[in-house]
């Protein structure tokens, strides 16, 4: 049994890794040091979506971190009327506010697979192209499996065709 990592999606409490297996999308949800494995079988996939969004939680956290890091230095610079100090301090803590600006500008791409009973989600914050590739791969793979599973039916002329499910 082989499986390939498609993407991940994590929050503060849970880390999720989504894999492409032979007959399903496997979801490993890891909370602490124990994990649960679920599957979305290809022949039960109902919908695959790709969207781009700005996450309020991410924006809030990055904004809070930027504020906490920037404010002491900017306060000192304002008190001492030292512009150079303010610029240097801003440059030192630039990763925080640059991350916030990048997130606001480009968002996060998310691929979602809806099964009959289970949902798999993957996020692509930096590798947007990877997200589009995963979306295309899942569309192709699910379509291929479901077409193969659909039994052919005989038409009125006697030739066989694929039954509409």
């Amino acid at each position, binding site marked *: 049994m082989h499986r390939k*990592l498609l993407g991940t999606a*994590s929050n503060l409490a849970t880390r*999720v890794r989504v894999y492409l297996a032979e007959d*399903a999308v496997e979801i490993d*949800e890891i909370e602490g040091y124990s994990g649960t494995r679920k599957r979305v079988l290809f*022949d039960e996939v109902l*919908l695959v979506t790709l969207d*781009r969004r700005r996450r309020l939680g991410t924006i809030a956290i990055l904004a809070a971190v930027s504020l906490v890091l920037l404010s002491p230095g900017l306060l000192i610079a304002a008190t001492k009327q030292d512009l150079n100090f303010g610029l240097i301090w801003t440059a030192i803590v630039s990763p925080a506010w640059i991350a916030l600006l990048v997130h606001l500008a480009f968002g996060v791409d998310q691929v979602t697979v809806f099964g009959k009973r289970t949902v798999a989600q993957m996020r692509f914050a930096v590798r947007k192209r990877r997200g589009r590739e995963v979306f295309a791969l899942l569309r192709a793979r699910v379509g291929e499996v479901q077409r193969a599973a659909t039994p052919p039916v005989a038409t009125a002329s006697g030739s066989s065709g694929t039954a509409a499910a």
Partner: protein
Amino acid sequence: MNAVNTVTGYAGPGCPRCWTRLPDSVLGTGDVYCGTCGLDFAAELFVPPVQARAALPAPEAGTAAQCARHARNAAAAACERCGAFMCTLCRVKSDGLVLCAGCFDRLRAEGSLASARTTFRSWRTLGLHLSVLGLPLITFGVFIGPASIYASVRGIAQGRKDGDEGGLAGPILSLILGILVTGGGIFFALTMAGAFRPPGARR
């Protein structure tokens, strides 16, 4: 991840952000706008093939329905998922559902049945945390380091058993850090032992 994953809680395909159920006519257009949360998303709608059911033989007059798998057994129940008749041998009760063996296997493989869900220990996470923890606690490296190495090796083996392609960077990094932590701990221990050497033995 906002995964809606219980048998009773999942409403069906729809918006991937607010989970609003959307009709197939909307989802089938390809480019969808969710009126509830304002999200634009690309969608590919699928219509899964209907599983063909085996034709059950009609019961003889005056007799009870027969089990789909054991023709000589009377049916005791019908599967709540596929409707097939089941005798008492085939019937499986799980999570409040009465299922046939085939449906139970399918739901178990999906992870939809809480009582039959596959769980595992994440050795790679444990190895990574131990190895990172060992760096500031290098004084206890002789204990933390070997534990980290053990967990990292188990993590690599677990990945191989699961058939993961790639993904070894994390466990290998943990392994390397674990070795460094072990070495640091041993060095610290030897240094401390040397510091407490009797005065006459010092050079």
